[in-house]
């Protein structure tokens, strides 16, 4: 699928209606989501016939996008309002008439997923656009830790550029990834989502990371 076609489908993604501040809910922008998914599909693991977990799926932009590209996806999120929108997006964004997108959703607290649960989920790829830790400190690293227990091939994640050197060390030394690389540096243009945002748009530098999993023999 062409990048522009994927982006076009992602533009139909319904966003959060009433984003919750404490969960740091932001909808992944269509051009960012499409670039991420297209890069994974073309340069790394192709999505067709793979299993994917979208950790903290929110409205489902990344997970539904991966399903459009042929993956079997499980979207996990804590918030039932977000999941209701994600379910709608499963229909709204589906480009095909007679076939449903292969994505299921589960309501769960990502941080509560036990090691046994993480291990059993065994997805080829975990994609996550985690909360950045502006509300709950360290939560983005917690998401990454949970992701490392689930993925059997690779984890794709987004983190503030300001955390880059910390993550580089932490991913290899503590989380046991084989490789950690910044695939691209993006600029997140977060619109004035919450009342306390002073500027009209907040622009932050975000790294799109690929972490390769050490294969467990």
């Amino acid at each position, binding site marked *: 699928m062409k990048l522009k076609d994927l982006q076009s489908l992602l533009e139909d993604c319904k966003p959060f209606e009433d984003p919750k501040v404490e969960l740091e809910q932001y909808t992944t922008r269509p051009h960012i989501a499409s670039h991420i998914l297209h890069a994974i599909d073309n340069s790394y693991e192709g999505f067709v016939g793979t299993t994917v977990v979208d950790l903290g799926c929110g409205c489902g932009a990344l997970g539904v996008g991966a399903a459009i590209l042929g993956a079997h996806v499980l979207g996990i999120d804590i918030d039932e309002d977000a999941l209701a929108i994600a379910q709608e997006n499963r229909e709204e964004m589906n480009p095909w008439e007679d076939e449903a997108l*292969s994505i299921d*959703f589960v309501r769960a607290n990502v941080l509560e997923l036990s090691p046994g649960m993480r291990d059993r989920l065994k997805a080829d790829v975990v994609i996550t656009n985690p909360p950045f830790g502006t509300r709950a400190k360290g939560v983005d690293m917690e998401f990454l830790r949970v992701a490392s227990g689930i993925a059997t091939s690779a984890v794709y994640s987004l983190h503030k550029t300001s955390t880059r050197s910390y993550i580089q060390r932490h991913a290899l030394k503590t989380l046991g990834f084989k490789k950690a690389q910044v695939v691209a540096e993006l600029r997140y243009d977060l619109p004035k989502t919450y009342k306390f945002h002073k500027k009209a748009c907040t622009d932050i530098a975000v790294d799109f990371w690929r972490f390769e999993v050490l294969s467990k023999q």
Partner: protein
Amino acid sequence: GASQPGGGAAAERRGRGTRTVGGEAGVGLNHLHDCAMKLLTHNLLECHIKGVTNKYPFLVEAQQVEQTEVDFNPDFLRRMYPKLDWKAFKDTAEGLKLEGLPDSVTEEMLKSDEAFLRAFHHILLEVDVEEGALICPETGRRFPIVKGIPNLLLNEDEC
């Protein structure tokens, strides 16, 4: 539940508490609407209540089951097979009155038994549990499935 396509009589039979099972051709074909839990997903979930040792598999209480259509991809089935707990998959399918899965699977069957692969594909990916619950095998705790989404959030005393 919400009104669904598929005809008046069929829709009436498919109310809350009515069990629609696989095998009834034509009934429950609602693939483009409600989201649901596939048996693939069920096979990958276990109970994570703290202290529980008999945590897998969840028992499935199904009040509403639908059929959908997913592209047949035998290579996916071959890759997926080693990641599944086959006994849990087969037992759960039988609990939902879905017959046709063998007790054990050989390399040969995965390679070239089309009838087996079709049955495996259908039950793994095309049967959707829309309403019901996942039940912890040790504690009996019900995790409800509402509109196809299992709610696995734990209570304070469970984590």
